[in-house]
């Protein structure tokens, strides 16, 4: 039976609500649940999951709808009671005293004298106005929220440039400012490398690789994914470059982005030329042919960019970057042979990623090793998967794409969809290697092993030939502690590589060797 209740005028942010819904699903006798603000889009989601009732239909934008599909009325009642408790749970901070929750922006600025950064993660339709208010109060702004109109983004960024403030985002998932991880970020060493990134996962990958190699980060600025598009004109990226160029704590600058619009690339190049400090840049899926300036170092992968920055930061010869990668490959070669030896019939690689930039990086690395790789987020439209849920050939998919995240938390937090795919892909006899990523740090899933391992175990049971390769993006000081996670994965039979690029190369190599072996067997 479907039961719903409406709470009028009770606003909650969507992530909190999804966390509540996830917990409701764990209530005995509950088949499915949705806890959402009753906006038009959310009604669509509820309808799609078969939980729509006339009451929900009648509810308005500012009403909270709780819908459950329950086996019994008692189960529904228990779920509603649980929802009430979860929603009304007062965080300790709200009780007052020194850690009182501020009633609004004005109150917050009064309560925290000298506040200089606002982090905004409310629903996208409210984020723009809120960010404008923050700029009015002379706060730098990071907008985690997405679904902010591009005109709003441009207006905010122009205002910020005028006021010499920084607007990171919208859709900026991560940053590290003055050593502090903001939103989805890792706990990394401080150092002399300044990062500016248009991709959240890319920023996390390079900062952790740098930190794990013993170097450190001065600042890491996220620009939001649209910044390098023509409409926005890299307003934040260029401002960040200026700030890093001036920053006495930064000796090396590292840029991470998808290939910018050609006109925007020109603008960026002109800015890079003005910088005396060495600049490393990776535009995933694109190549910079132009020699912008003497100490400019283009890179093809996040990994190459990170290790080049480490060498520059430490005053090592650049060749050392290649050596680090070479050493990694040498170790991988043994593993590849061992894994390939298991394969009798399977030859296909399937990449199930939670980080979008990793999907791009995989497409930079894999095709030259194993040929055509399909994706729901292809670098070249030619290789677009017809149906994102039906993987064919070699394929890598981004589970963080909107098509998968409607109404559920990001796959870095909620593993449930990927867990299903891990098992369903493993059941296919042609699948030889599952390539994964696992992102640690603040904001990410705090119990990655508990949530991931059951599906890994099941996958190995289903497919005797299967290899599972992953990278673990994180550091030892992250809340999840990288070594613990690596140990747990390895104990379950997963091969863990230091970088996503390394994981891609190993996975590719296994598939390549397996295919060659099977062709040899046939001959």
């Amino acid at each position: 039976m479907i039961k719903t209740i409406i709470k009028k005028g009770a606003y909650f942010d969507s992530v909190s609500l999804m966390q509540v819904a996830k917990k409701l699903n764990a209530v005995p006798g509950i088949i499915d649940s949705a806890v959402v603000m009753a906006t038009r889009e959310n009604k669509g989601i509820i309808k799609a999951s078969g939980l729509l009732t006339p009451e929900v239909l009648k509810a308005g934008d500012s009403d909270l709808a709780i819908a459950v599909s329950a086996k019994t009325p008692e189960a529904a009642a228990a779920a509603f009671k649980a929802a009430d408790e979860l929603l009304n749970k007062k965080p300790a901070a709200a009780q007052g005293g020194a850690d009182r929750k501020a009633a609004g922006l004005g109150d917050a600025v009064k309560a925290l004298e000298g506040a200089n950064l606002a982090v905004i993660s409310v629903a996208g339709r409210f984020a723009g106005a809120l960010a404008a208010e923050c700029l009015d109060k002379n706060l730098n702004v990071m907008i985690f929220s997405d679904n902010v109109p591009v005109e709003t983004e441009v207006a905010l960024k122009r205002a910020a440039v005028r006021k010499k403030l920084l607007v990171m985002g919208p859709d900026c998932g991560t940053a590290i400012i003055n050593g502090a991880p903001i939103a989805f970020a890792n706990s990394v060493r401080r150092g002399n490398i300044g990062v500016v990134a248009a991709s959240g996962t890319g920023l996390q990958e390079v900062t952790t690789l740098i930190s794990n190699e013993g170097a450190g980060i001065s600042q890491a600025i996220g620009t939001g994914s649209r910044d390098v598009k023509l409409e926005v004109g890299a307003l934040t990226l260029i401002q960040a470059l200026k700030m890093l160029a001036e920053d006495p704590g930064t000796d090396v600058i590292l840029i991470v982005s998808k290939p910018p619009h050609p006109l925007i690339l020109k603008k960026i190049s002109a800015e890079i030329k003005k910088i005396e400090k060495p600049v490393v840049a990776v535009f995933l899926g694109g190549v910079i042919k132009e020699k912008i300036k003497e100490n400019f170092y283009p890179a093809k992968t996040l990994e190459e960019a990170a290790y080049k920055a480490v060498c520059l930061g430490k005053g090592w010869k650049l060749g050392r970057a290649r050596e680090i990668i070479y050493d990694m490959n040498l170790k991988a070669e043994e593993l590849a042979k061992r894994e390939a030896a298991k394969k009798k019939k399977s030859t296909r690689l399937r990449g199930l990623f939670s980080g979008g930039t990793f999907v791009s990086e995989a497409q930079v690395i894999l095709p030259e090793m194993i040929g055509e790789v399909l994706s729901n987020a292809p670098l070249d439209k030619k290789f677009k998967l017809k149906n994102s849920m039906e993987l064919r050939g070699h394929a890598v998919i981004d589970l963080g794409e909107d098509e998968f995240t409607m109404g559920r938390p990001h796959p870095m937090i909620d593993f449930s969809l990927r867990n299903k795919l891990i098992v369903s892909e493993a059941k296919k006899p042609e699948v030889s290697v599952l390539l994964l990523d696992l992102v640690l740090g603040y904001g990410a899933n705090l119990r990655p092993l508990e949530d991931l391992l059951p599906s890994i175990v099941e996958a190995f049971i289903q497919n005797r030939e299967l290899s599972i390769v992953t990278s673990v993006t994180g550091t030892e000081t992250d809340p999840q502690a990288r070594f613990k996670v690596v140990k747990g994965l390895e104990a379950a039979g997963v091969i863990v590589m230091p970088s996503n690029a390394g994981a891609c190369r190993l996975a590719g190599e296994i598939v390549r060797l397996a295919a060659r072996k099977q062709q040899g067997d046939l001959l």
Partner: protein
Amino acid sequence: MKLFESELKVVNIGLESFRQGLTDSGVKSVQAQFRPPLSGEAALFAKTSKNAARIDKANQKALARVLAAQPALVGMGLALDVIPGMKKDLILHAGPPITWARMCGPMRGGIMAALMYEGLAKNPKAAEKLAASGRIKYAPCHEHGAVGPMAGIISASMPVFIVKNEAGGNYAYATQNEGLGKVLRYGAYSPEVIERLKWMESALYPTLKAAISSLGRIDLKSIVAQALHMGDEVHNRNRAGTSLFYRAIAPAVIKTARDKETAAAALEFINGNDHFFLNLSMALSKASLDAGRGVKDSSLVVVMARNGTDFGVQLSGTGGHWFTGPAPVPDALYFPGYTKADANPDIGDSAITETNGLGGFAIAAAPAIVQFVGGTAADAVSYTLAMYEITVGENNIYKIPYLNFRGTPTGIDVIKAARTGILPFIDTGVAHKKAGVGQVGAGVLSAPPEPFARAFEYFARKL
């Protein structure tokens, strides 16, 4: 200040978990609460932003008049004689305009009591018939310079206090508070209710009138300022205000009363009613806010009032226009034997105190009644602090000791309320929904969103 060379201090709005990484790195942060705006019309917000300078100037002007008001109790009289536009067949009520058909139980009961008190009906049945007949006219107290708690009923022969804003020259009127228990303002109409009203008219009224007249005036503003320092917020707690008023008037009562018994009875009555001062704090608020009316382009709220069915709001810059929405039922602590199911939706003109920076807006000054607001003094402080987000300014006279004598948040700006989604916080008594039962509890509520959204949209469109 360059961000990279300053100490990072973060305001986090949205996901609270984002503070963990900051805390672990020793970065100071504060969580700012977020609510969606009351109106979905982004263009109207843009319009008010564009005209912000003009609106701000108008609001400052309106608030300056409110803050400069000098409300003093200057006399008493019968409603028919002193309230502008008062008539024998007119009954004034709390809140925005309403027809008999839509009135809630307590308001109907109060009107029936008033008709019997006026001698226009012999018994409840006749009173109810007359009330519904169309021969009796109804109008909001607020449209006649008056205010009334709960049902807020004022009929022609009721005695009223006369409060004058000596700075602006305008007047406000309110009846004498009847005390707790079975009383007209909660819709009770039994014989003892009428009897008490008769005694208040024939004994209390002349005694107080003579005493006030011998004093000339009683400065109400200074009583409220002191009462806030003594634990009142002068809406739900009036113990200090009543005591201070008692000290001010007692010698004059004794001097002017026709005999000792009359004086003692009057003083006993005030002494026995901790809420006696409420009607005066309301009239003081009304006299202050009326001074802020009629400022072009001002989005200052000059009235919040409820009739037990609707919650109504008026703005300085939109004349006599009422913006209404359904009145909510307060979250309350109920007297033994009663529950929320017994409660009438919010009722009374007493939210004029909040409109004036008192009541719920000054709850941080009243730790003795924090059990109404969640139980801890910190909760009360949070409520007051939240109101600064939606007010034009801070009070120059009414100050809160705990907040280092910061002035109370005063003068609600409907634009700020609409933008932040923060609604005025009101602490109030709760009436039984059936006429004649009386008060069933006391508690708090946030004003409903609709009147503020409507007021904002109307104001912004007219800009």
